Structure formats: C-alpha cells, structure tokens
C-alpha cells in the first residue's frame, strides 16, 4: 500500500513496477553496503559507489514508466500524492535546518555528518514514502 498506493500492485503494470523497483532496491542495498567496506579494493568500492545513484535513478525510471502506463485519474492521484508528500518533507527539512541554525536542536546533519555516510537521507525518504501512501489513499477517496 505505502509503495504502490491506492490502485495497488494487483494490476499487471503494478506488478511490473514492483519487480523492477525491488530489483533496483537490491542493487542499491548491496552497492551501498559494499561501498562502505574498507577491506574491498578501491576500484570495486568506486564501482559500488557509482551503482548507488544509478540504482536510485533506476527506481525513478521505473516510477516514470509505471505512471505512463496508468490511466489519467490514477496518474493524477499518484502525482498529487507525490507532490504533497515530497513537498511536506521539504518543509520539514527546512524547519529542521532553521531549528539547527537557531540552536534549538543539538544536532543537524552538517558538513561533518555529510562527510561520512549520508544516512539521514534514508529516514527522510521513508517519511516521504509513508506520507505518499497515505496521501494517495486520501486523494483517491476524495474522488470516489
């Protein structure tokens, strides 16, 4: 539900999207973990480091392909939900940044945190995806 929304993955295009996304997600996980293993030779780590954004692009490509296969109302609902959820996460990120700049929170991901693994990206994506799933249900119900 969270990943594929109200119209579900029961449709052929939904199942194709799920398979493609899961394959790219597997590439992402393996590459992200391998890139941070110090004992691996540098060429392998660089290859894995490049594979991480490629995998994210692959998930994006799969989503675009999925949207192009949907009918117009389903596509509109997906786009509305994505705009709402990613917009909301950007607002949250702005609030977090301002709170950190004003000294209201002790730790924000500053340059030092970014020098290591940018793990803060994953929770923000999870929040956005969870919001997107719920927004999709809301927007779909508003048109029933």
């Amino acid at each position, binding site marked *: 539900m969270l990943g594929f929304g109200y*119209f579900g993955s029961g449709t052929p295009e939904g199942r194709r999207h799920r398979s493609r996304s899961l394959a790219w997600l597997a590439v992402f996980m393996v590459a992200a973990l391998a890139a941070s293993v110090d004992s691996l030779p540098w060429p392998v780590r660089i290859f894995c480091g490049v594979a991480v954004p490629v995998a994210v692009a692959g998930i994006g490509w799969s989503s675009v392909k999925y949207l192009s296969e949907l*009918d*117009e*109302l*389903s596509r*509109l609902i997906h786009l509305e939900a994505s705009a709402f959820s990613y917009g909301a996460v950007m607002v949250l990120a702005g609030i977090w940044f301002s709170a950190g700049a004003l000294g209201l929170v002790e730790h924000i991901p500053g340059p030092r945190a970014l020098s290591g693994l940018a793990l803060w990206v994953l929770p923000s994506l999870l929040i956005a995806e969870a919001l997107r799933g719920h927004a999709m249900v809301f927007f779909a119900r508003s*048109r*029933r």
Partner: protein
Amino acid sequence: MRNHIRLLRAERRWSQAELAERIGVSRQTVNAIENGRYDPSLPLAFRLSEVFERPIERLFDYRDGVGDAS
C-alpha cells in the same frame, strides 16, 4: 462540470467496468467521472463521445455543479 455519462451508460446497459474497458481507463475513473469528482481530459472526452456516438456537448454540461445532469 455536470455530465450525462451515467444515464447514457444505463441506456446501453453497460456496467462501469464495461464502459471503462471500451474507453481504456479504470472502473474507478468512470465512477469518478459519473459522480462529478473528476473532469476527464479532452482525449478521454472524445473517446466517450465516440463510444456513445454523441457530440461532446451532449455529454458534458459546462455549468457550476457536480454529478449527473440527468
């Protein structure tokens, strides 16, 4: 925008799923159009016009309001 889709579909004894298949959208989309919750795109409006063999202006009534105009 009001429309006469539900009435025209009932006259032909088509289910929402059947109409959806004829115009190449999901049943939810047909339901949303009939209930006035979604205004179809111009290409979809032309497909509806084609399957009902009526000009577009006989299917849709551009006035404020929702739901079936019948």
